[in-house]
Structures are given as C-alpha cells and as structure tokens.
C-alpha cells in the first residue's frame, strides 16, 4: 500500500516536472541542451543497459562516437539530423513490449521522446559537463549591499528567491566563529580583547589577519588535509604496525602556515622527488603518496599490494584533489563521466614506476640526518660535483639520502638454500645458499651496500655474474652483530647490466644445514666516489663512508625506478591484475588533455603540472569547494567527492567559478587570501539564527543566515583544552598518546601499546594524536573523524548518544572539566558561585551569560554542592589528587563547579559553532 501511494506521488511529481519542461520547451526557441535536457533522460532511462559496463545490442550512449556507431543490427541507432530514420527514436515509440525501449520498463514520456527527437534533429550534439570545462573569469553581479564580490553572488540568489540576508552576528559569536574556523582554537586573550573592545570596522579585518598569521592556523587546516592524504601513524591492514611518517604531517602544517601556493603544495606532494635538485622538504612532501596502506601480513604478495597502493594513490588524487570519482574506471569505462577504462591504466602508469614495493621496511626511506652532519653531506656532494659533474653529484646525494637505487631482497629468485621469509619480508639464507638479483646496472660500478642481519661468525658473501657458478666479482666477510647492519664494500670496476648471484658460505663450522643464518633487506651496486686521484680523497671518502653507515630513522618517500628497472604498464581487464591487457603509456584522460602543456614530461611531474595548470577545470574548484564546506558546513557543490555529472548541482556555480578564478590568478594560489576573502564577506559574518525570512531553506543552501554547525572532532577537543587552560602549544614531532581507556588497542601479532604520554604531551592539539588505522582515538571516531584508511573527501556529521557519552564521561573530558573549574575560580571577580559561572561562560563564549542560563547552571551548582558537602569523599573522588587536599568546603565548591564545567562543555552552543 505504502509503495503504491508513493508511486502515485512520484507520477504526480513527474507529470508536474515534465509539464514544466514541456512549457519551457514550447516557449523557448533555443536549441536543446545536451547536459540539461538530454543527459538526465539518458542517465535515468537508458545508460544502465547502453553504456559503461553494458552495451546491449552493441549500442552505447556513453560517448558520441559510440552512440553514432553501427550497432549489432548493422546500422547506427542515431542518425544526426534524421530522427525519423534513427532506430533509437523508433524503438522508443513502439507498442510491442519485446521491441519497445526501455526494455521491460515503463515507456518514456511523450515530452521526453519529443526532446530526444529534437535533439537528434539538431545533430545529436554531445555537451560537456560544467565541471570539466576550464574556469572562466566571472562578471560580478551588480547588487547593492554586502562587503565584497562573494556577497554580490549570494545576494543576487537571495533576491531571486525573495529572501534577504541576516544581520551581522554579534561580536562575541563572530570572534568564536572565525577563530574556530581559521585556527581551530581561541586566540590569545590580547587579540580577543582588542577585537571585542575595538570599535571600528577594521577591528575584524585585523583580527582575521592575526589569526591567519598564527602558527595555530596550519595545525587547524592540516587536520582537513590529512583526511584527504589518509595520513596515519600505522600501515593499515592486519598487523597495522607503526609507520614513521609524522614528518609529512609537520610538512603539511608548515606549508599551510607559510601559505605555500596551492599549486606548489600539490606539485611537491605529487612530484617533489622529480623537481630539480629537490630539498629534503620536497622529498618529505612526497610521503603524501606513501600514506597508502601497506600489508605486512605473512604470506601476502608484495606485488599485489604494491598495485593496491598505486590504485589508492590514483583514487586519492582524483577524489581528494580533483573532486572526481575515478575508481569506477578501474574496472570499466565511467558510466556517466568522460573517462574510459584504458585511461585509468594510463593514469596508473604515472605511479607504476615507484621504488616502493610493499616491503615491511617501507623502502625507500629518506634518512633523517641530524642537522649537525649536514655540512659534511654538502662537502661530499660538492666534492662529487667538482670531481664528477652535476649528474654524479645528484646521484651521490640521492645515495646518501636514501641508499637508492637499491634492489629489495624480496625480489630475489632462483633460490637455493634460501627463502623469501613469509613470502614478503626479506631474503633468508642458509649455509651455501644462493639467490639471484636480476637486472643490476654494473656500469662503472665498484661499490656496494648491503642491509642485512646475521649473528653468526665466519660468514662470507660471494657475488657472481650471471650464473650461480659464474665469475666472482666481489667478496665480503660478514661480521656478526646482534643488530641489522648497513655495510659498504668495494670491488674492481664492472661494466654492463647483469644478473648478480649472491652466495653465502660459512667456514666457521657448527652450523646446521637448516639454520637460516643471514637475512637481507636490500642491496645496492653503484659507482664509487669520484676523484680518487685528487688530493683530500681519503678524508672525504672516510666522511662519505661514515655517512653511509650511520644508523638513522627514515621517512617513506616516493622515488622513481632507474631506466633498467622500468616496469611495463598494462590495462587490467575488469580491474583484475591477473588478466593483463594491452600495454599503455602514462597519460591523462583525453577529455582533460587540453589542460596539459606539450612540454610536460611524461612522469609524475608532468602530471602535477597538468593538475596545477590554470586550464585544469577541477583542482581549483575542488579546493575552493572544500574550504567553503569547512566554513559553511556544506560545499557549494555538496558532494565534495564528486563534481561530475552524478554529483549534486552547485548552489552557486558562478561564485564557485569566481573564487576558483581568483585563487589561480589574483591570489596566486594563496589559500590564506582565499580564506580571508570568504571570512570578510558579509555572507560569512551573518547571524546564524533561523528566522521566518529564511523561508524553507532548512540546510541554508542559499545562505540567508550565518553558518551554524557542529564542530569537528579536532575542534571539539582543542576547544575544550583551550578553555580549560590545558592546551599545549608545542608543535611537531611523533604522534602523542593522550589518555584513552584500556583495551582499545589490541593488535594481533605486534606488541604495540598505547603508552600514555607524559606532561604537556597529554594536552597537545588533536592533530598530533597518534593515529592507528584499525583503532583510532575513540573520541575522534565518535565525532565522525575519518578512519584514514583511504582518502576521505568529506566527513558526514552525525548526532548520536555515543557522542554525548564521550563529552560527558570520557576521563579526558573530565580532566578538562576539573581544570576548567579551577580557571573559573581564578578568573572570577568574586568567590560568589554566580560570578564563577559567569566567568566560565565568558571564557567559552566571550560574552556574559544570559540570565535564564545562569539560573539553570546555578541550580545545578547548588544541587551538586549539596551532594559534595554531605559527602566529601565523593568530592575527593571527583577531583584529582592535587585539588582533593583543600578544606572540605573549598573542595565541595570545586567539585560542584566541576559538574557545572562538565555541563558547560556539553552545551549545544559549545559543541556547535554559532
């Protein structure tokens, strides 16, 4: 019954809609528009059988040339200009249910058919979706009122809907709103007071400028970016072990604080390693792509997860940076957007030649030299430049920084008395064991580096050319150690590209044949340091060797394969790696190739150049839309992850394009300038109260009022730390572990433990909290934090009782409540409870508490005070040791105030940005 009723409504609505379309059609002389008139019909009624995955009867409507091509019947279904002879139109109008299209579904409406007819008559032209066309400069509407161009676009829309803008929010609300938005916490008291006391219009602008200049700015916006970058402190999958990649998080914070132009921000993350003479920071930026998960579970195939990581990288740049869902194309052509199956693999090819191979050691790593030895690195590099030229200098620099190019021992084959441990960990070798390393460039090579572990004395390694019993070109004796070692060895200069056989022999005796006595992580073979005959060589060689042998921690980065290790790029049929199809070369999709410069190299750098070209239609729009969503709660295109034809229609497309154009041109890609423009608009500064004049716009799409939305997980924690006076402003460094209940971490196989941080590390901003993918910090997840397993373009805000339980009962929040109460006491004008509550409210909202609210909280205070006066032991239990030592009266008061503080931290207006 219910469904029947719904259907009736649906039909009624369709009739209305169609009547509308029909009316527009009759009164208008203009040509049928593919995107607005035709594509919706095709997508709704035709495409699921005739496009993308399926092309029934050999007919597909996905691309124009497909649609006009000959079908299985031997003739084309659409003849441009001739609807009467177009099979598609004929089949829509038949009565035989076996023949009439859509097959076994309701017939198209008359009005739809006549639109299609007219479209074919006009030449069956295909149109482009707005988001795939370059951003054009916009004309600012001529509307009175508002502060800047943004307001002109918004007011024009409001006017068209007979709505008017709300007045400006009061200063206190505005201060809290803009502070939480721009820096995620409250500003220093002096800055806050200056704004609150300041009278003139400039005060707000000055406030905004000081917020934009605050180091807290980068921390706030890093949290947003890290969802896209799927940053985490662990590797993911089963064992989800630790990953040392926090330097990337710090890079993001710094880049945002220094207002690195957004195009540069993308180039460095996508292709920092391919820039000329990259800096350490530019290499760390490429860890963006190393945030993909890697799988250490025993027995898993490294090659499978290397491919998974690359696909994840592709999906991440498309969804996160270009607002387009591309993952579809992995298996088949995109059913709605102009991307073909093959194009996914052309795009994937940009990533297919990375050195990373899903090994547990996460090589290649950028070695983190202490600053003190950097002059020595410079000395070695300078020496090399002088003695061997720029190319050699770059090679040696890369070698010192990363040991690359090195071959991962897990790729060894032709194993005798040797195994790849767990199929994916390392190469483990027994007495007389031999393994082959393929395709090693030994041109002018005379030096090698090995990373291995062996605690057995008496071992020797022999390196042979091309065969297990081929000529030995190098030998090395293995000194036992209880730790993994990195050893440099030399041999007579070799030429050519060879297979290298590595053989282990031990003459020490006492080994059982079954014992695995040495295990290798990787090996490198390369030229020695040039300039042997120059004075000072011995000294610089010693420095060089010492630098190579230093045991350092490293950050995973992207690096490209040298030419002799280039992998072939192929299409995976239906997305399956085991059914390789034709070979492809790196390329961007044809439909967006117009944004590519002809001089762009055919690698990730070329890819980054394409993305950041001012012609590129998606990158600027995506970031503008994302920043807008952060401030207003809803993007101009609500579906941040998809601006394509399946995404939602923009609420203010001209505004989106205006800001995108400004970003690329006037602002020179400065995100701070963009944010400044938005928060200075009168649109942003509106009061967020709902009023009758706002009409039916429940979701505030037209912006007739200011934004009012729940804070993010990070903003909530940081705000509470801030008002309780606990917030540490310490920046950077490894992830910290604030209080969390026992038993949250319980990983199979690895003994990782949540080791509660000491001192101020307890109270660091949320962006520094250690992020374990399979078990993120509980309060982050209950407030809709992303799991950071894959790129999360958008967080969906929910409202659940588990959130209430978190802010009510989580010990971390109780701790903050206690400190907040103490701060209420110390900042109140008197000992009077109402003065204290008033002070507390002021700390949180910068304004005096409304009388009614004060009454409510005073009552709570009195109820609490009664309880704690009667039972001092309860008060002692609530308070921490430090406060639990005072006079019973004082303790009861502090405890009662803690209950009030806890309530204040739970108010809707606290959890929400007004």
């Amino acid at each position, binding site marked *: 019954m219910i469904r029947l009723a719904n259907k009736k409504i649906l039909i009624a609505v369709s009739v209305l809609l169609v009547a509308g379309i029909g009316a527009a059609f009759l009164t208008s002389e203009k040509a049928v528009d593919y995107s607005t008139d035709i594509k919706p019909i095709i997508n709704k009624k035709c495409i699921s059988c005739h496009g993308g995955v399926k092309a029934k009867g050999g007919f597909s409507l996905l691309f124009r040339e497909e649609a006009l091509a000959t079908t299985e019947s031997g003739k084309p279904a659409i003849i441009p200009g001739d609807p009467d002879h177009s099979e598609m139109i004929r089949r829509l109008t038949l009565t035989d249910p076996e023949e009439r299209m859509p097959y076994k579904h309701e017939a198209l409406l008359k009005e739809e058919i006549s639109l299609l007819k007219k479209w074919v008559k006009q030449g069956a032209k295909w149109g482009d979706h707005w988001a795939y066309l370059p951003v054009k400069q916009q004309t600012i509407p001529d509307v009175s009122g508002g502060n800047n161009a943004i307001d002109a676009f918004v007011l024009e829309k409001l006017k068209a809907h007979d709505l008017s803008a709300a007045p400006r929010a009061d200063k206190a609300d505005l201060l809290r709103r803009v502070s939480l938005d721009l820096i995620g916490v409250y500003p220093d008291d002096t800055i806050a007071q200056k704004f609150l006391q300041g009278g003139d219009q400039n005060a707000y602008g000055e406030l905004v400028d000081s917020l934009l200049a605050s180091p807290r700015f980068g921390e706030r916006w890093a949290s947003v970016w890290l969802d896209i970058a799927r940053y985490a402190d662990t590797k993911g*999958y*089963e064992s989800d072990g630790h990953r040392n990649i926090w330097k990337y998080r710090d890079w993001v914070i710094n880049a945002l604080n220094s207002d690195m132009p957004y195009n540069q921000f993308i180039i460095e993350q996508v292709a920092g390693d391919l820039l000329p003479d990259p800096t350490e920071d530019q290499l760390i930026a490429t860890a963006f792509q190393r945030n993909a998960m890697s799988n250490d579970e025993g027995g898993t195939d490294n090659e499978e997860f290397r491919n998974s990581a690359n696909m994840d990288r592709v999906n991440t740049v498309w969804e996160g940076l270009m607002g387009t869902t591309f993952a579809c194309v992995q298996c088949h052509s995109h059913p709605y957007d102009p991307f073909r199956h093959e194009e996914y693999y052309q795009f994937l090819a940009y990533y297919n030649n990375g050195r990373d191979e899903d090994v547990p050691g996460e090589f290649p790593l950028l070695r983190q030299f202490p600053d003190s030895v950097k002059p020595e690195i410079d000395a070695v590099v300078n020496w090399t430049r002088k003695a061997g030229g720029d190319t050699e200098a770059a090679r040696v620099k890369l070698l010192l920084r990363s040991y690359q190019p090195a071959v991962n021992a897990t790729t060894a084959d032709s194993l005798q008395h040797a195994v790849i441990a767990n199929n994916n960990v390392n190469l483990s070798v027994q007495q007389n064991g031999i393994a082959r390393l393929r395709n090693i460039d030994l041109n002018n090579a005379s030096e090698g580096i090995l990373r291995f572990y062996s605690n057995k004395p008496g071992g020797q390694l022999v390196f042979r050319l091309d065969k297990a019993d081929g000529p030995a070109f190098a030998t090395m004796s293995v000194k036992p150690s209880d730790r993994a070692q990195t050893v440099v060895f030399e041999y007579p200069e070799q030429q050519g590209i060879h297979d290298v056989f590595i053989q282990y022999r031990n003459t020490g005796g006492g080994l059982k044949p079954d014992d695995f006595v040495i295990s290798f992580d990787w090996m490198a073979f390369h030229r020695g340091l040039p300039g042997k005959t120059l004075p000072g060589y011995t000294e610089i060689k010693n420095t060089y060797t010492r630098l190579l042998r230093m045991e350092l921690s490293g950050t995973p980065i992207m690096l490209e394969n040298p030419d002799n290790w280039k992998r072939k790029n192929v299409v995976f049929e239906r997305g399956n790696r085991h059914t390789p199809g034709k070979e492809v070369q790196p390329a961007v999709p044809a439909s967006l190739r117009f944004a590519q410069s002809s001089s762009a190299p055919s690698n990730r750098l070329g890819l980054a150049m394409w993305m950041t070209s001012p012609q590129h239609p998606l990158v600027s729009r995506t970031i503008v839309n994302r920043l807008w969503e952060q401030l207003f709660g809803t993007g101009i295109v609500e579906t941040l992850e998809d601006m394509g034809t399946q995404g939602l229609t923009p609420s203010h497309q001209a505004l989106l394009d205006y800001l995108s154009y400004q970003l690329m041109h006037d602002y020179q890609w400065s995100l701070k300038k963009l944010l400044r423009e938005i928060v200075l608009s009168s649109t942003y500064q509106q009061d967020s109260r709902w009023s009758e004049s706002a009409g039916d716009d429940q979701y505030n799409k037209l912006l007739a009022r200011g934004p009012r939305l729940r804070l993010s997980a990070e903003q909530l924690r940081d705000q509470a730390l801030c008002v309780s006076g606990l917030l540490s402003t310490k920046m950077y460094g490894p992830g910290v572990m604030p209080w969390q209940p026992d038993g949250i971490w319980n*990983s199979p196989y690895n003994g990782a433990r949540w080791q509660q941080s000491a001192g101020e590390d307890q109270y660091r901003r949320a962006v520094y909290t250690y992020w374990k993918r399979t078990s993120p910090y509980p309060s982050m997840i209950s407030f809709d934090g992303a*799991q950071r*397993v894959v790129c999360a373009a958008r967080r969906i805000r929910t*409202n659940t009782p588990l959130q209430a339980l978190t802010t009510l*009962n989580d010990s971390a929040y109780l701790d903050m409540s206690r400190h907040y109460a103490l701060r209420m006491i110390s900042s109140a004008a008197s000992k009077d409870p109402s003065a204290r509550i008033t002070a507390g409210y002021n700390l949180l909202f910068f304004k005096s508490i409304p009388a009614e609210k004060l009454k409510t909280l005073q009552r709570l205070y009195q109820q609490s005070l009664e309880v704690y006066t009667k039972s001092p032991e309860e008060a002692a239990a609530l308070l921490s040791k430090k406060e639990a030592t005072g006079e019973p009266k004082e303790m009861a008061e502090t405890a009662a105030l803690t209950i009030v503080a806890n309530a204040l931290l739970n108010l809707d207006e606290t959890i929400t940005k007004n």
Partner: protein
Amino acid sequence: MTKQDMINQRLLKEAAAAQMRMHTRRHFLKESAMGLGALAIGSLLGGCGSNAAGNAEPAIAFDPARPLLPKSPPFAGKARSVIYLHMAGAPSQLELFDFKPELMKMDGQDCPPSLLAGKQFAFIKGVPKMLGPQAKFAQHGDSRAWISEHLPHFSTMADDVCFLKAVTTDQFNHAPAQLLMHTGSPRLGRPSMGSWVTYGLGTENQNLPGFVVLTSGGSFPDAGKSVWGSGFLPSVYQGVQCRSEGDPVLFINDPKGMNRDLRKASIDAINEANQQEYKNYHDPEILSRISQYEMAYRMQITAPEVMNINDEPDYIHEMYGTRKGEACLANNVLLARKLVEKGVRFVQLFDWGWDAHGDHAGNSLNLGMINKYRSVDKCMTALLLDLKQRGLLEETLVVWGGEFGRTPMMENRNGVQNPFKGRDHHTEAFTIWMAGGGIKKGYTHGETDEIGYSAVSGKVDAFDIQATILNQLGFNHENFTYPFQGRPFRLTDVGGKVIREIIA
C-alpha cells in the same frame, strides 16, 4: 504476535513518541516537507553495475539526526535480529561435523600429489601426511546429522539447525578471510555486515547500540576492529564493542565521584540550557541534540543492567556454563541472548584460539582443541534452547562458523612434521551452521568429497551466506547498496546468491 513482539512494539512506540515530543509541530512539518535534502544520498544510486534501470529499491533515507530509528526492510523478512558466532582462527570441520571414514583409512599415508599440485597452503611444505578424524562420530536426531563426540550437548540440537557443509573461500590467511566473511572484501575499508544491517534497518531499542560486538577475552580477531567497522557508511553504524571488563560500553559509566542523581541533574541542566538555545536559534539540530542526551542517559541506565548477566537465574547460568567475572564465550553468548531480547539488531561474537595447527599442545586437535570444543558446546546449545523457549528463535538468525576450514592433511611446517596433531588452513571446504530466522531445521546442504578436501555439491561462499542473511532480514542483496567513490557498493560486491535450498 509473540510476547516479545509486543514488548518490541512497545519499545518502538516509546522511542517514536520520545522523538515526537522533541519536535515542535513547526519543525516536524518543515522536516517532513523538506525531506532530507541532499543527505538522502541513496538518491544518487545509479547503475555502475548490475542494477537495471528502474528495479532499484527505494533509497534508504539516512537522517543524520536520528540515524538509528527502526526502518522497514523492502520486503517482510523472517528474521528480526542476528547473532553471529565467529570462531576466529577457523575450527576444524573434520573433527566436528564433516564425518569422513575414508580419511581415517588414509591416516598416516603420504598425501597424494593430486591434492597438492598447483595448490597453495599457508604452512604446508613438501608432501604432508594424511590425518584421520581425531574424533568419533555418530548420527543424531531425526535428521540423522553426523556430529562428533566433542559436542555432546549440541548433538541434541541436530533437528533444529541447518548445516552448510560445502562452504568455500578464496582467502587462506586469517585477516583477509575474516574480512571477506564479514565485509564482503578481503581488504580493509568496506562496511561490515552488522553495519549494513543497522544502516538498512536501524534498531529497535534506542537505549542500546544497534550493532554490538562481543569478544571473548584473549586477542581481537586478526583483522582487528575492521571486521566490525562501518567502512564508508556513516560511523554511527560501526559495531559498538561492548566489553566484559571496564565499562560495558565506552564511557557509559559516570565519572567517579558523580552519582546518578547528579548525572541526571546535569543532563537536565544541559537540556534546559539547550531548550533556551533552541528558542533563540530555532535550529532543529538543537532538538536532536537534546534527544541524544536523553538517549545517552537512558543508555546509561539501561545498558549496564542489560549488559549485566548476573541477574539471570542460576539455572540459566548453569545451562550456558558461564564463568563469573571472566571474559569468556559462554558469558557473551548469554549476553547476546539478552541483547536480542531487548531489541538489539545485530550481535557479533568473536571467540579466539581456534587455529589448530598443532605446532604446540595448546592448538593441537587432540589436546588444546578439546578445551575449545567444551567451551563452545554447552553455550551454543543453551543459546538455541533458550531462544526457543522464549519464542525468539524463529525471529533470531543464529550463524556459527569460522573464516575457512582445515586441511585433511596433517600440517608439516617448513616440511617437517609438526610435533602435535594439527591441520593447516584450508579454503576448499568447511562447515557453517545456521538456525532460526526462517532457516530450515534439521537440514544439511552441500557435501564434500570422501576425504573432506573439496566441495562436490551445494558449494557456497561468503557472498552466498551474506546474501542469505540479508534475505532473511528482508533485503535483496543486489539492490541494497550505498553510493561510494562514484558507484553503488553492496555487501556482496558482485557475487552472492541466496541459498534458497535452506530457507524454510
């Protein structure tokens, strides 16, 4: 209508009434008229795959303010809730349900090369020996089902359960196999079955989480919390791990030094202040927040009581074989019954320690596993009897199984015979049983070859089981989708066929 139905109807009405109270008439009308705007993300459903135009089910409305309100499935399902008992580590079908006398005859012989050629095992290397069943079997009940001596209690339930004896998988490592079983993909990132079900059906008791996860101490399953994660579904649908130590639900207990009256007073004050806020701002989200705080309070009252099994009578404890104060399977199974009785939609249990390799006594088939059999026999039998006597079995779907099976060969790790009797991971055949929820009673579906190596008839996989579970709850698994990364995803990915043969 059973008594439980009536109780549930009442709970439902109460929850709905509470919701209503929180809405001013104005807001309610506005909301109904506006629909859910763009958040009815289901409206984006399009055909990237199998959905032919027009046959998609109506989109599931996702209301972020009340995401767990009960919803009707597309068609009337026979089951109302699910209890899924997962024996992590993978129990041996050959010692419990899949009786293979022929294998006994081959005991100790070298494994024929035909069984090894082109096969991949987790640990077996070279040529292992065959290992006969380490148990005596007998037929039970009218259905004459074979059940081993290790499950004396469960043997009495033969006529109430349905055995699937030819379940297969393509994953031979624990984590991916568990993920496949519960999320439809061996990789991380997909929503688990319980998340799908609570997304589609909501839950009947708003004072308790809709999707509860219980682990019996020891370690988590290998796949970690991802086996009850919400993947790309809103996080509200992830499984809530209820714990046997500490707070039963995270943060459910009041802080030390805050008594229940003060908590009540404090929530009242918060809500009063929020009402004042609502008068000022008219934002309906404030009303939702008020109702969430009320629910949180009710959950604080209800959950510890429901999660406390100590108030059950002694004979019930005796029946389940519970152990006071311990985190064990029997306690969790009893708790699972209490939870479905109170209207929890999906209870997922994980037991641990079933990985019978035989590389030490604790995981050998004839030593350590004996304890595991004992620990599960009594409580899973009690669960079925208890649900039955309460009239709940028909509407509660109970599923029991592991992530894969065990080899008919004895494990020889690195080519050397293991010191104890054990079996390696096996993908080609294992047994899962189901009961209640509209599944045939006393029925066996599927058969393996004479040594239990591979399925010969009635072969099913994880997708088929998922499709069947969804079917029993009232969903066509092919149409129950959620749009993500540009295409509609479903629990069963591109596979799955409802196992019609086992539906009553």
